[in-house]
């Protein structure tokens, strides 16, 4: 089912009358049957957006549509959504079976059928053998799967997941991520997956939505957003290690960093911010490129070598010192102290104005 948000706004008023625009004029269409990753730093309004979709919070302004139906004022119990809470919110006094059965009982599903569905769903999430345990007798990952089962058992029109993996250890997180993806593919339920982990969002989602301060920054397929960020925030938020940001100038159709030419541009002369992805540096073995540095630190892990270069600066304060990272082939056997000439891949370099907006 397609979800459409139109100019959705949610303002929280704190006790001291100060206002927080947790969701600010958001317009977004989530295509049917897709898994969307809602991504952004802590406090950017991800949970709030989810709760607005669920109906647990009421928007101050704007509209929500499920397909053609406007649901802006429909109470949560009538929206037919499944929601997995940030900390699961399993009913502690009910067994796994009762937890999963609960929504079906409320929807007056016939008892035999409900029982059968519960067992089926438990099998889908691999918890058949634990149906009679209480939530506190389960591990974090198992609890999370119960929460997913409870959300899915009523075959919701939309599945909303609020940082469902945040409490899991690294391995379990990877495993559950795959499982969510698998379940979503099997059920074809339109899913919104909230996370602040860019890697998680990029790996699981059909499309990602990047949010900041309640405002949507960009939406698109993960790789497209990564390859073509619409502003500096998005460019910095995606990718690990982070994108390198340099102060640069454009003069006579050429781009300069520290008076060294790194590329060409059609933009008019002026100061710019230049973002270069760590994998965007090529080592020029003929040593012809004018873009050269002495390498300060080298760390090799497997195939890749990370070079760390301190940029020259006028100030002696260490906090003002800037450095950048380049990831190159480990075969090059670069050592610290070496002078390296870099060529910058144009498709890995983005220009921004001083406000962080993308140029070109």
């Amino acid at each position, binding site marked *: 089912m397609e979800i459409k948000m139109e100019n959705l706004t949610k303002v929280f008023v704190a006790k001291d009358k100060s206002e927080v625009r947790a969701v600010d004029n958001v317009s977004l269409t989530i295509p049917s049957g897709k898994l969307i990753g809602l991504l952004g730093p802590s406090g950017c309004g991800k949970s709030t957006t989810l709760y607005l979709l*669920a*109906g*647990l919070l009421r928007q101050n302004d704007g509209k929500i549509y499920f397909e053609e139906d406007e649901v802006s004022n429909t*109470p*949560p*119990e*009538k929206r037919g*959504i*499944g*929601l997995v*809470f940030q*900390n699961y*919110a*399993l*009913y*502690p*006094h*009910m067994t796994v079976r009762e937890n999963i059965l*609960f*929504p079906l*009982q*409320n*929807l007056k599903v016939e008892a035999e059928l409900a029982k059968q569905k519960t067992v089926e769903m438990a099998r889908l999430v691999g918890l058949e053998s634990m149906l009679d345990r209480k939530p506190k007798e389960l591990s974090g990952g198992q609890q999370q799967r119960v929460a997913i089962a*409870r*959300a899915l058992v*009523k075959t919701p029109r939309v599945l909303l997941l609020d940082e469902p993996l945040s409490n899991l250890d690294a391995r379990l997180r990877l495993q559950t991520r795959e499982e969510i993806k698998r379940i979503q593919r099997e059920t074809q339920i339109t899913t919104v997956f909230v996370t602040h982990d860019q890697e998680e969002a990029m790996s699981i989602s059909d499309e990602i939505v990047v949010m900041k301060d309640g405002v949507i920054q960009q939406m698109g397929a993960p790789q497209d957003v990564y390859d073509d960020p619409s502003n500096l925030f998005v460019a910095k938020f995606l990718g690990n290690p982070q994108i390198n940001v340099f102060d640069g100038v454009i003069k006579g159709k050429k781009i300069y960093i520290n008076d060294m030419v790194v590329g060409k541009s059609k933009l008019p002369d002026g100061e710019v911010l230049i973002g270069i992805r760590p994998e965007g540096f090529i080592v020029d073995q003929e040593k012809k490129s004018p873009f050269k540095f002495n390498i300060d630190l080298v760390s090799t892990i497997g195939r890749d070598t990370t070079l760390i270069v301190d940029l020259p600066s006028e100030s002696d304060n260490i906090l003002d010192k800037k450095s950048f990272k380049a990831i190159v082939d480990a075969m090059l056997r670069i050592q610290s102290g070496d002078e390296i000439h870099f060529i910058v891949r144009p498709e890995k370099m983005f220009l921004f104005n001083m406000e962080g907006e993308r140029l070109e």
Partner: protein
Amino acid sequence: MEKRNNLKAWLYLAPLLILMGIFIFYPLINAFYISILEEYRPLAPGGATATGYTLSNFARILNDELFWQAIKNTFVVAFISVPISILISLVIAVSLNSIPKLKALYQTVFFLPYVTNAIAIGMAFAFMFHKDYGLINLMLSWLGIDPVNWVGNVATWWAQMGALLVYTIWGGLAFKILVFTSGLQNIDKQYYDAAKIDSASKWTVFRRITVPLLSPFILYISITSMIGALKAYRTVIGLFGERLGAQQNSMITIVAYVYKYRSAYQDVSAISYAASAAIILFFITVVFSLIQGVVSRKRVHY
């Protein structure tokens, strides 16, 4: 090391244990002792006397029709007032919780009975239940119901008991509401959000989420208020005065029975009868508390 710590622990506990010994265990054991004395005369010239040990005091009160009247009245009060007052206070607490703005005001209103003198309120209630001028009969008349003689000389047993129950239930609400509202505040709000997502009706939420999550509080309240109801006395005095009923002793309770003999302490063995009745009440209380503990163990969620 372990031993030394144990000694320390006992030392720390000593003041409390000594006080408990003086004010709880000694009176209890003393009551036992008095209850089995034969022809006990506490005020005999030259000091208290008794002729020996006997169980005849128990036999005597168990053959006393008035004692059985007291048992019956006490049980009726306990078994009707406890569940009803728990239910009412639960409903009020839950409703209060859903109107945060008025909560403070209502909490004060409901708490007033708790800080007001029971005897004074009893007199007010007695007046409310007056056959000709009382508020209750006035309200019944609006519903087209004939006036009931609640507490007058010729009131039926059930009418008196009705008035006593209303008063008992009302007087116990404040504390229960207070405990339940603080219990409700401990329940994570997220369960209610989850229940909304799971399409639960208000009634389902109350029955399947609120009540189970409050169950430790409900158990605590049901045990303490059961004990309180088994010891009912002030309410009877408050409503009916020293006659203990519309007719002499018609609303007598076990504690009132104890008190009656205790007041007659000059009579031979009267104190022993009082002690025997008190001991019987003690065992009734213990048995009920144990039953409640066992029954609820399966149903209480911690």
